[in-house]
């Protein structure tokens, strides 16, 4: 699915929206349509944007206080009781603090809990490393039964959240605090397990998720100016991975660069390497947080500091060219 409109990359000056904002909006719409949807938070409802749902549906909102283990356990119990719970907190707490509860109480019994974790990645900004989840994709995708989704923009977030509500079983949706440009094409329809080719190209495949997608689109534009035709894939479902689309892009391009706001270990880059090393070994470079914790700073500055820039993606491609 190619959309020429997006071939220019995210237009400068186009409105940016944080995916957490889109989540808050989608939850309210879900609440109106689905009486079985309940929402839980751990004292961060104003930040995760579940507060909007809480205002409209106070009877279906449970604030557990600062107790993430109990957040996940209670959500699991609500699912056992036949409801469709959405549990929210920051990604670092959802995937880290409550990991055993997610593993034992949600993933193992395959319960219908939707974990919507906001403030993922280094673009949390000034709060620093303790609040910046750079390992959550890795932690969540190793759990059997777990579906892992990283929406790229507001449109995809809304669709992913609504799709998750109708998707039986545990789902982890990774959301951000930092506003991101819209990258999904007009008429886009999210499907679990389906990657989207946002831009066609035969020289290199840029495989990205989340904020990495807009970085990849900008990089593709810069590469085009140098005569390198880059394909751009939005892999919004990390698990199950869309093997067909990724392998086919690797076959066509022969080279792959992954881009994600996550550790280069175990996330999208890791998943793509696992897949391609078995199915279609090609050269791969992983752009992401290089096995270090984050730090305080303005989000855009941190993205530059850790190399999450179109320029760095271009360098990775050129480095492979020189091989």
């Amino acid at each position, binding site marked *: 699915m190619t959309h020429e409109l997006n071939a220019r990359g995210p237009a400068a000056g186009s409105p940016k929206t944080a995916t957490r904002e889109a989540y808050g909006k989608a939850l309210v719409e879900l609440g109106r349509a689905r009486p079985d949807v*309940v929402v839980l938070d751990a004292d961060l409802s104003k930040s995760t944007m579940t507060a909007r749902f809480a205002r409209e549906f106070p*009877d*279906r909102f*449970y604030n*557990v*206080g600062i*107790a993430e*283990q*109990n957040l*996940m*356990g*209670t*959500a*699991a*119990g*609500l*699912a*056992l*009781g*036949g*409801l469709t*719970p959405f549990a929210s907190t920051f990604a670092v707490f959802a995937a880290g603090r409550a990991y*055993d*509860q997610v*593993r*034992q*109480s949600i993933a*193992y*019994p*395959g319960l219908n809990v939707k974990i919507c974790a906001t403030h993922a990645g280094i673009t949390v900004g000034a709060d620093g490393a303790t609040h910046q989840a750079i390992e959550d994709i890795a932690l969540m995708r190793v759990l059997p039964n777990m579906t892992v989704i990283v929406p790229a923009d507001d449109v995809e977030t809304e669709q992913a959240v609504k799709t998750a509500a109708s998707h039986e079983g545990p789902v982890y949706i990774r959301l951000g605090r930092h506003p991101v440009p819209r990258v999904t094409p007009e008429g886009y329809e999210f499907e679990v397990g389906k990657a989207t080719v946002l831009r066609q190209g035969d020289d290199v495949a840029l495989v990205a998720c989340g904020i990495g997608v807009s970085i990849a689109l900008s990089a593709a534009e810069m590469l085009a100016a140098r005569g390198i035709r880059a394909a751009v894939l939005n892999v919004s479902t990390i698990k199950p991975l869309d093997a067909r689309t990724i392998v086919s892009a690797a076959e066509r391009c022969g080279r792959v660069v992954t881009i994600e706001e996550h550790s280069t270990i175990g996330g999208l880059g890791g998943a793509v390497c696992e897949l391609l090393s078995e199915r279609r070994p090609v050269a791969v470079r992983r752009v992401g947080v290089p096995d270090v914790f984050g730090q305080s700073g303005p989000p855009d500055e941190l993205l530059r500091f850790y190399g999450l820039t179109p320029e760095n993606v271009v360098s990775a491609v050129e480095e492979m060219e020189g091989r």
Partner: protein
Amino acid sequence: MNAERRAAGRGGTGVISDRRAEYLEEKARLIRRRVIEMTAAAGSGHPGGSLSSADIIAALYFHVMRIDPGNPGWEDRDRFVLSKGHAAPALYAALAERGFFDPSELVTLRRTGSRLQGHPDCRKLPGIEASAGSLGQGLSLANGIALAGRLRGKSYRVFVLLGDGECQEGQVWEAAMSAAHWKLGNLAAFVDCNGLQIDGPVEEVMSLKSPAEKFRAFGWNVLEIDGHDARQIVEAVEAAGRAKGVPTVAVAHTVKGRGVSFMENQVDWHGKAPSPEQAERALRELGEGRSLR
């Protein structure tokens, strides 16, 4: 002492008849026999804490709970969450005796491919309401099930069984805080206080001081009972039903390994299976019963 407690609380008449109490004692005895047979057959498992909780599980499954073994997914059924998942043999024995599955399956405990996993798996075995094993998580699950019942206008009740050692897990207290905050009157918890955990007496490993006082401080309706007295167990459930808008916990004083002389109060029997000879001796002590084999 038990008789005095009853007399004080009930004007001299128990909440259940002597015949009913004897019936529940008999069910608990059968569960204990099964625990011995199952763990001996498996060569591993947790007899100590299964034996200590047998009377509570028997009273719930053979007197208290509204359940239908022919329809384990019945929406209005009462729910039981075994938070101390290692007592699974006692729960499996109760479920089989109650007709959820054929008792002949009990000897498959802990075998590859068995529905009777070392710790309960709600996806495998009918009648298991929640998977458990990693301690401290069951009360949160029970809270969620109770909240769902209230939101959906269901009249079912939720029961949960914790261990005293398990109460060292912080999540128990997160959940205890929540149950009272949410006024979960449809929830009743039992704490099987057998006083022992893997590394020794709870009091020595990490003293809880008084679990009753802790639950009371969080706003629960708290009872202290003899966890081997069917009358007191049933009375606690009745008292929980009368306490509106507040969760009830019965801090149940029990003996680890109860019913088998050489296992009683012996920490080694927390997680060790009896040898065939030991099992034979234990079964003789527990009295007549149809063998599984």
